[in-house]
């Protein structure tokens, strides 16, 4: 095996995301905000991980650090076994934000083709790929429509298709379903589980909804605010997801677990119990002061 091949195979087996002691602070005029403190997290290939926590705890910041849209103040960020910047330049991830961020003057098809067009993929190949993706997200009849003619849920599906355009090994999503009604949201969750399964992509998913995090994820990462840090990681062992999963007793048990982790209570059955207890103690100590 040559060195290049070794590097190649190394990249293939490397985790999707590796964070070591990641720290991020913002300096504003009124002082310094520590958005992320001492974050360690490894996300395996094909793994679905949700980030949950109170508003302002640094979920979006963490996602942007992984995406190399923000530089960490300290620590190390590896994506697909490479530095985050290299991974961004190599288009190793696809990203979807809370706002769909579509270009209103382009058709659905042309919106999905945007990353391919920017990276010089030829026209015929672009069309073929976009058609595949449009089918994947169930918008075949709307390929020629423009975003203002679509509902919010349809626009989000276009944004997800666009994020998948270059078959990334990693999908980063920041509250993509935040603006949707409950029914649409559940349908989109079902579709996302299916798409993640079909493409084999790892997903980092930011959400405020506990049931959403539990339904989608292999692991739920619970964060706390000021400074933003990971207080707990709850593994969810629900097996293959179906609509029945939402009614299963295990589903509710997992929801309770995540909720208690969010409250800073010790969580039984999880690996990181120690961290959580420590945190609960620290919280009560702070309260006493």
């Amino acid at each position, binding site marked *: 095996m040559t060195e290049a091949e070794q590097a190649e195979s190394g990249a293939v087996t490397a985790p999707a995301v590796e964070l070591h002691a990641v720290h991020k602070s913002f300096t504003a005029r009124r002082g310094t905000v520590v958005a992320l403190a001492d974050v360690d997290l490894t996300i395996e290939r094909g793994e679905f991980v949700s980030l949950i926590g109170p508003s302002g705890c640094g979920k979006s910041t963490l996602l*942007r650090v992984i*995406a190399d*849209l923000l530089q960490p103040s300290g620590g190390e960020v590896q994506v697909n076994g490479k530095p985050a910047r290299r991974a*961004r*330049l190599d*288009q190793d*991830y696809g*990203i979807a*934000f809370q*706002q769909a*961020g579509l*270009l*209103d*003057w382009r058709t659905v098809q042309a919106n999905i083709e*945007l*990353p391919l*067009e*920017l*990276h010089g993929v030829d026209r015929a190949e672009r069309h073929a790929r976009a058609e595949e993706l449009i089918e994947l997200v169930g918008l075949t009849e709307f390929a020629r429509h*423009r975003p203002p003619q679509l509902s919010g849920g349809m626009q989000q599906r276009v944004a997800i298709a666009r994020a998948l355009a270059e078959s990334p090994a990693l999908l980063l999503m920041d509250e993509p379903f935040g603006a949707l009604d409950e029914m649409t949201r559940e349908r989109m969750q079902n579709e996302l589980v299916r798409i993640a399964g079909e493409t084999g992509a790892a997903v980092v998913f930011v959400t405020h909804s506990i049931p959403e995090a539990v339904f989608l994820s292999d692991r739920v990462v619970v964060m706390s605010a000021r400074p933003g840090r990971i207080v707990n990681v709850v593994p969810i062992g629900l097996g293959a997801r179906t609509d029945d999963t939402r009614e299963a007793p295990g589903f509710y048990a997992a929801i309770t677990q995540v909720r208690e982790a969010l409250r800073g209570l010790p969580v039984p059955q999880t690996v990181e119990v120690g961290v959580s207890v420590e945190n609960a103690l620290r919280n009560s100590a702070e309260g006493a002061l």
Partner: protein
Amino acid sequence: MNLRRVGVTLLPPIVFGVLFVGGWQAFVRLEDVRTFVLPAPSDIWHSVTEAHSRIVTAAGHSGLNALVGLLTGVILGVALAALAARLPILGGAVTPVVAALAAMPIVALAPLLNNMYSPLSTLPRREVVALSAFVPVFFNVLRGLSQLAPVHRELMQSYAASQTAVLRVIRIPNALPHFFTGLRIASSLAVIAAVVSEYFGGLQDGLGSRITSSVGASDYPGAWASVLGSVVLGLVFYIAAVLLERLVLGSRATSPV
């Protein structure tokens, strides 16, 4: 557009126009208003039919000044806005100057510009028109080019896209509706500037010159006939700008009517 919709859009202004002109005619005749105060529409119409070909010729001269000035102003406005958007230092230097220009009635420059050229030159008028048209185009295009939604900025950053790609894929398409808003305003201003700049002497071949010379000769219906010619010329420019916007933008067009 179907006939019914055209009818529904056109009927109210036609009815209003007929009532307005009818009321005007009745008022002048019944109150016996003197012509130098306000001539009756029938007198004005008489002047229009009498001097028809001369009004058209004059409108052609004013219209050509307006068109050449407008095109010059639009090209300058787009070019400078593009530079100002690309080089913020230049933008910071140029924008206040253009803002000062916008605060001043540009036709006030006409007599000064007239002095710089031969009395037979059309250049001073065209310069006034170009300056007037430049201002709204510059500001609107600059705004359109400068707006970049954070989500689009981050998206393009995630694609590792160059500034040139951002310009081509997002900034320019984003600026197009703003450009047409500027063009619509500029097209009306161009005709106003072309006609009014003729009030201050120089070559006597346009609608503005006809208005001043008719007033000088106490031919008030004749002056009003030339005003009517200016109104029509202004409408032609405005409608042309709206049609161009529709043609290019389709359903993204923002123009009224």
